[in-house]
């Protein structure tokens, strides 16, 4: 058992995946000598060589477009997008090619591509470095989308994502890169596409993923002091959604709050609210409430703490839910 950061969890997972399968390659800007701007690929080029850890030209569409061709030669590219705001130049290749080729070829072509995206705000960065674009991908048939929230999941989920034969957008909560946890490499991980109850409770269910899981857990702890019992679920998988534990919890508590950094309108919260309401209509004491970023572009970092959902805004929603 060793304590590792979330960033280190991804690094170790990448290393394990590359050792396990020689077809696994890493592509991205500055992933080689520099080890990535977050050092997540640190040391990998040194150990696996320039053929497997590729410093690419500065073109995201090129990264995803060539990854498609590499898949056709049996490779399993792990593509790093340096920051969330820079995935859009590759959007066409992702949505029209990566996501559709399995379908278009009736399964003759598989696209085992992992697109790693450090996402979300809270690190005081300049514009385009704090986006939460997950809904753009979760709305796209043919892609799968997951988000890790802690070092241990980071370690296991990245390996599971690389081993999977479908294209997966892998979101890493950059503001949590330096959070630590104990990793036991012997334990058997949960399946990749499963959500997990991280704190049990009976009054209100709070759903979160990525960076907001910690916030939700902190909110639950604070609420406990006021005698409110909050159940927190880490969604982990955003497409497909694993609604089973969510519905169970919703039927138990009758009150659901969804939290994410992305703007509320058409964020993941909208889909979850629609599904929970349909599935648990007669069990709900209150409408599913959504806590998220406002429907504005990400603001200058000096006020990002106002923009981002925090403990208080989660508790505020919990209170509003309980008020029904």
């Amino acid at each position: 058992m060793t304590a590792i950061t979330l960033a280190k969890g991804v690094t170790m997972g990448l290393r394990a995946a590359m050792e396990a399968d020689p077809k696994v390659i890493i592509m991205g800007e500055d992933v080689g000598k520099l080890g990535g701007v977050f050092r997540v690929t640190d040391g990998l080029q040194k150990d696996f060589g320039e053929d497997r850890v590729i410093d690419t030209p500065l073109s995201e569409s090129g990264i995803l477009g060539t990854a498609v061709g590499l898949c056709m030669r049996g490779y399993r590219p792990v593509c790093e997008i340096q920051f969330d705001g820079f995935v859009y130049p590759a959007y066409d290749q992702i949505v029209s090619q990566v996501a559709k080729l399995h379908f278009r070829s009736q399964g003759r072509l598989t696209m085992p591509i992992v697109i790693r995206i450090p996402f979300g705000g809270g690190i005081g960065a300049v514009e385009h470095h704090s986006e939460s674009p997950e809904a753009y991908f979760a709305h796209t048939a043919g892609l799968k989308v997951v988000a890790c929230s802690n070092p241990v999941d980071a370690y296991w989920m990245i390996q599971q994502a690389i081993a999977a034969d479908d294209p997966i957008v892998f979101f890493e909560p950059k503001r949590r890169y330096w959070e630590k946890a104990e990793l036991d490499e012997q334990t058997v991980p949960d399946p990749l596409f499963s959500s997990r109850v991280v704190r049990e409770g009976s009054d209100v269910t709070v759903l979160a993923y990525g960076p907001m899981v910690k916030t939700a857990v902190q909110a639950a702890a604070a609420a406990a002091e006021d005698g409110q019992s909050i159940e927190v679920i880490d969604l982990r998988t955003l497409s497909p959604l694993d609604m089973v534990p969510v519905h169970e919890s919703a039927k138990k508590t009758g009150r659901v709050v969804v939290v994410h950094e992305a703007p509320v309108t058409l964020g993941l919260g909208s889909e979850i609210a629609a599904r929970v309401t349909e599935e648990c209509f007669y069990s709900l004491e209150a409408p599913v409430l959504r806590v998220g970023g406002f429907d504005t572009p990400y603001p200058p970092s000096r006020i990002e703490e106002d923009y981002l959902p925090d403990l208080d805004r989660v508790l505020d929603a919990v209170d509003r839910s309980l008020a029904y």
Partner: protein
Amino acid sequence: MFGPGQEHGGADLIQLLTPEGERVEHPDFSFGLGDDAIVGFYRDLVMTRRIDTEATALQRQGELGIWASLLGQEAAQIGSGRALRDQDFAFPTYREHGVAWCRDIDPLQLLGLFRGVDQGSWDPLEAGFNLYTIVIGAQTLHATGYAMGLQRDGVIGTGDPDRDTAVIAYFGDGATSQGDVNEAFIWASVFNAPVVFFCQNNQWAISEPIERQSKIPLYQRALGFGFPGLRVDGNDVLAVHAVTDAALQRAREGSGPTFVEAYTYRMGAHTTSDDPTRYRVTSDLEHWKLKDPIERVRAYLSRGGVVDDDYFHGIEAEADELAARLRKGCLEMPDPNPLDIFDQVYEETTPELREQRDGFAAYLASFGGPALQEADAQ
């Protein structure tokens, strides 16, 4: 041959067979095969054109939703397609019916996409021929990535002719304006990838003339990216073969990418949905008719007495048979089972999709539609 000399010499069109069917010499390129190969090319050209005519007819009769005709571009496609080795891989647009023919794709399979029963039913990896790509330019990056895979697989520059492999990416003149295509040039150049960028400059991107995409000859685009560009008479099957063969060999040897501009003309409409009379004059058409890619080969073969009339008749007959088979096969193409689409989205399907499939099956069943067993049975 691919040295900086091209920077100037490339300005002239590389031609080995004149529109009149005369063989001519070129300082850098010569056709490496014998008359028997040309006899085979003639068959390829005729069969390809017949596939195209029949498909166009099928569309007119409502059997296809749309068809993209290659009329006029047969030599560019056969000449390049026949330069490929079994192990090579081709990335087509939506118009490479002649290349598909060279890759032994059953022409009937080309109709699926245009009839709306599938999006390509051949196995790209087995055929060495990817599915048609409709999003302009996207396939040039796929080709470059595939070529990077070849480098990693050690099948470049080994000297073993059955091992060394090259990739060819097809695209049009309009595609050269897409960011993806230019990025592909950069990646291929930087990584010295074994890929041939084969541009059929048919002078038009739907209604837009080549001037809307470039002010200078397209083949010169490559010079700015650090690899050679050549312009070949796209209606001269011998020249196209010679140039593509050399470019592919260069790639297989590990000498990197080449840009081949096949200078040709789109004799038909952009697709069967298009009306060229709105934007171009017929005089151009007349001018290009005289450069027909098939006529010049026929002229060469008959003048030289390489083959007799029986041969030509034989080919016609074979083409008639193919056309008949195409027509019959097209009409018999079964519609897909709507319940199959759910299982084709992912390699490992999801509970959500299973639920949607089952729900839809039940819904269809309530109208007496295809039951789920059927779908699963397929």
